């Protein structure tokens, strides 16, 4: 009987001690990340049947278990991943947002200075200082574009670096989780099923940290180990085995790193980028594909538009030396699209792209693939597809040609028409005299004409060559037939109030006052009534130092809708970019703040179940202390009883 007394008290003391130890452990780990508070679970030991009924035999601590809600923990993990993705995306896009913020430096002021200088040349085309200023401001504009593009390229490089860092972290976590899987299974089996709480907490914390890098799904196995998968189901950890991710160069775009997962056989399977959701990696990939490339493309579109349309107009003019600008003499360097051959191609095809119509450029990237019979061109912004059996094919102002070689089925190419526009823009002309301010043709009427008709100075379009007015064209008016003769042998188009009439080469042309007459790319207007025999001469423009007709057209490019199918000017496209980035940043700010709030409230819920409350632990200390004291006192009384028994024998 006394042994029962003692053993019951001993069990009580043990239980109180275990309780105290557990409470002390909770207090010590109050600030440990991922710690779930532990509770000692006491159970009364089975009673013994004595003649007077079942007598209790004391208490035993059956287990120390963590207060753990799987559902809440899972929610915290998942929301941590989403929050990390949004925060990463937001902090990356803020770099671009800040880059576009300044209103005193940046594209718009540089563009304005340049066009102010073009206006100054239009006002004084003979002035060399004005021309030099135009070249200098063009160089500043180019530098502004290049510097912005350089910042974007650095961001891309940094994204690649962060992808690598993230991948290493993920691999580290994967290995640790696999190791813990093994330890936990071992610990559980060697202790007869007791949960190894510290190891379990550690593993759960690692899963949360893994989710900060990449969205991962965990499936608990029957033996207690976690199987972790990422992306669209690729296995990262399976029992004791950890597979690793690697950052590999994209086959379609060499400037980007993609994520691939290793398999049991040792091969690397590239992950579909859009399937990687959650975590910093998800944020980086979303940022790159939804914001960074678009920003580079649109900034490049502005630069490409400025350089291309300006060059085209400059080529229609004549410089101070009396020469027309040519393709080797352009003002800016001509923009060149980027074509990437997929490194997995097996064919020998080499594809090039040229821009044929700047107004139709969309700023999107394109993917060209060959299936053995047809080429399929996909516009990546909205997945519109054009199919063609042969190359060249022209879409959205870009002409894509097969330069050499032949493709095999399955080959593909990535075509980026505007992405390097801002990187490559530069001023090609150095001699101010080469700016084409004048028009190449001039129309005059001799003062001996007796009629009252006047001829406009004339304009040219892109089909004009000097051959049109070599030799000089002299038109003679015949009043009896009301015709003009003397055109060179090319068709002549007369446009009056929008209605065009074409006269065959060599035929006399009916005269209508005020109508626009064009031939061989040159056009002019005769207004008024000529007298019989009056003549008009159209010839190459010579000694035209103060002719500013082309300079006026160059200056007008600033406010014309030269881009996006005639709906937008240069600054219009740029302001669309600013609007897009601003909107995305502002949306991300709202959603990431909302997600953080949600995460915090979920954590608060989880903590309210599993978190340590120091006041509660202080109360527990008192409780177990009292229990210990009580048990100790009971022990003392039991000992006194025993002493009493012993002293009976004396």
């Amino acid at each position: 009987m006394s042994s029962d007394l003692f053993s019951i008290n001993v069990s009580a003391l043990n239980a109180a001690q275990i309780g105290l130890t557990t409470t002390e452990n909770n207090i010590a780990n109050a600030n440990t990340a991922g710690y779930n508070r532990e509770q000692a679970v006491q159970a009364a030991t089975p009673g013994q049947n004595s003649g007077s009924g079942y007598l209790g035999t004391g208490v035993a601590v059956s287990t120390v278990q963590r207060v753990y809600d799987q559902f809440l923990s899972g929610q915290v993990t998942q929301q941590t991943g989403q929050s990390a993705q949004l925060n990463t995306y937001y902090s990356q896009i803020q770099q671009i947002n800040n880059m576009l913020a300044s209103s005193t430096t940046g594209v718009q002021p540089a563009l304005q200075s340049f066009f102010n200088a073009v206006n100054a040349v239009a006002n004084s085309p003979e002035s060399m200082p004005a021309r030099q200023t135009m070249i200098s401001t063009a160089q500043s504009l180019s530098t502004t574009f290049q510097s912005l593009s350089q910042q974007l390229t650095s961001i891309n490089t940094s994204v690649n670096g962060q992808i690598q860092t993230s991948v290493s972290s993920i691999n580290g976590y994967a290995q640790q989780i696999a190791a813990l899987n093994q330890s936990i299974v071992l610990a559980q089996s060697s202790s007869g099923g007791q949960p190894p709480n510290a190891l379990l907490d550690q593993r759960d914390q690692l899963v949360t940290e893994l989710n900060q890098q990449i969205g991962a799904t965990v499936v608990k196995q029957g033996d207690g180990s976690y199987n972790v998968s990422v992306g669209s189901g690729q296995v990262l950890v399976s029992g004791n085995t950890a597979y690793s991710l690697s950052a590999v160069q994209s086959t379609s775009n060499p400037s980007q790193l993609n994520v691939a997962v290793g398999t049991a056989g040792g091969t690397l399977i590239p992950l579909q980028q859009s399937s990687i959701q959650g975590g910093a990696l998800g944020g980086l990939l979303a940022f790159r594909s939804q914001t960074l490339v678009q920003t580079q493309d649109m900034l490049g579109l502005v630069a490409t538009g400025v350089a291309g349309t300006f060059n085209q107009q400059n080529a229609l003019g004549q410089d101070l030396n009396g020469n027309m600008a040519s393709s080797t003499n352009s003002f800016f360097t001509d923009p060149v699209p980027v074509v990437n051959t997929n490194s997995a191609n097996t064919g020998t095809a080499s594809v090039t792209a040229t821009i044929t119509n700047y107004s139709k450029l969309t700023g999107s990237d394109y993917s060209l693939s060959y299936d053995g019979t047809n080429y399929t061109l996909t516009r990546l912004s909205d997945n519109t597809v054009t199919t063609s059996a042969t190359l060249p094919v022209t879409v959205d102002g870009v002409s894509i040609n097969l330069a050499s070689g032949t493709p095999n089925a399955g080959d593909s190419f990535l075509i980026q028409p505007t992405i390097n526009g801002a990187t490559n823009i530069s001023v090609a002309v150095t001699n101010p005299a080469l700016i084409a301010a004048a028009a190449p043709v001039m129309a005059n009427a001799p003062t001996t004409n007796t009629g009252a008709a006047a001829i406009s100075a004339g304009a040219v379009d892109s089909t004009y060559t000097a051959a049109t007015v070599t030799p000089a064209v002299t038109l003679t008016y015949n009043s009896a037939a009301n015709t003009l003769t003397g055109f060179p042998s090319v068709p002549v188009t007369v446009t009056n109030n929008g209605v065009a009439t074409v006269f065959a080469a060599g035929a006399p042309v009916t005269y209508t006052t005020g109508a626009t007459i064009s031939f061989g790319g040159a056009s002019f207007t005769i207004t008024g009534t000529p007298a019989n025999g009056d003549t008009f001469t159209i010839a190459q423009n010579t000694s035209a130092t103060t002719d500013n007709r082309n300079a006026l057209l160059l200056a007008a490019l600033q406010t014309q809708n030269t881009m996006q199918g005639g709906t937008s000017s240069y600054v219009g496209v740029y302001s669309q970019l600013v609007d897009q980035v601003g909107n995305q940043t502002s949306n991300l700010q709202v959603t990431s703040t909302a997600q953080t709030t949600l995460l915090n409230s979920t954590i608060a819920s989880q903590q309210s179940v599993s978190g340590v409350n120091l006041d509660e632990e202080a109360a527990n200390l008192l409780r177990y202390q009292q229990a210990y004291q009580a048990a100790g006192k009971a022990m003392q009384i039991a000992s006194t009883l025993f002493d009493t028994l012993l002293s009976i024998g004396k």
Partner: protein
Amino acid sequence: MRISTSTLFNANVAQLNTLESNMLQTQQQVSTGKSILTPADNPGGAAQALQVTQTDATNTQYLSNISMAQGTQTLASGVLQNFNTLLQSVQTSVLSAGNTGMSDANRQSVATTLQSDLSQLTAMANSQDASGNYMFSGFKGSTQPFVNTSTGVQYMGDDGQRSIQVSPNSQSASSSSGADIFMRIKNGNGTFVTQATATNTGTGVASQGSVINQALVNGDSYQVNFTSATTYDLTDTTTAATVSTGNAYVSGQAISVGGMQINISGAPASGDTFTIAPSTNVSVFQTISNFITTLNTPTTGNPAATAQLTAGIQSTISGLNNAMSSIGTANAALGSSLDGLAALTSSDNNLHVQYQQTLAGLQSVNMTQAISNLTQEQTILTAAQKSFVSVENLSLFNYIQ
């Protein structure tokens, strides 16, 4: 609901972070005066501000272009006014040469005066602007427009008229073609000119005439051919058709043909001819130098030469009138253009004010509102900090001995 200790701390820290970052944002707005610090603050506003800034800046550029155009036009107008003033003095000299009592020597000295006037007029037409470009040579700004040659003053420029962009869709001329102003001046009465043949021996003088029926004017040339001192034939020299023959001649009586009417006065000799032809362009310089040649021809004792002098004075006067009219028209056009530019300047200045206001509305911060927000946020932050400290101190451990 059970709260863990970490929640107490984390929730407060998160709140403090939010308050601090809001306060920083407001403080930056106050110190820069801008409500749009980055495009994310107001994406639509930031995009619109870019467009308005460009429109405002191009408006300012147009103001500068306008001022440039005003400069050159004012300069040209001054030259043309001086030109016409000198032409009036030339006209006085020309009229004076017709006074009876003028000897050949007197007329020669008038010719000398006219010669120096002609040089001055040519120099005026060759005026250059502040940049050294010739004002009246069209697009050939570095080529002197009016050059003396053996055949008189020739125009070496072209018909170009340099324009300056003064608004998004209109241009103003900043240079004129000298051909139009000084060279394309019709002689005679503007429609037709009468001419006495140089070999006439009589003293007949044909008047400049006028158009009496525009509908009948068909551009044909006619000839009055005196078959005797009192009769003449009328021939259409363009179609070689005879209009009438044997007409009786009376000095000063009207002669009409083809919708045109002239009169001949004086005593033509048999065989004398007079032509009536459509007007052609004769430069003002040519008109004056023709008359100088006439003045240098002695007339004493030569009645035919006197008749030619009289005819010469008439045709020179009408030529000078036509020139002054042409120059006056050009000057009037410059004047109205300058008026238009002045009006455009003031409306562009108003536009500038409007654009600035729009920009301010888009991107300037309401300072009073911002400062009041800042003060409020500071108060809230201070309260949050104080409450955090006082709550954090509460712990059961403080009471366990």
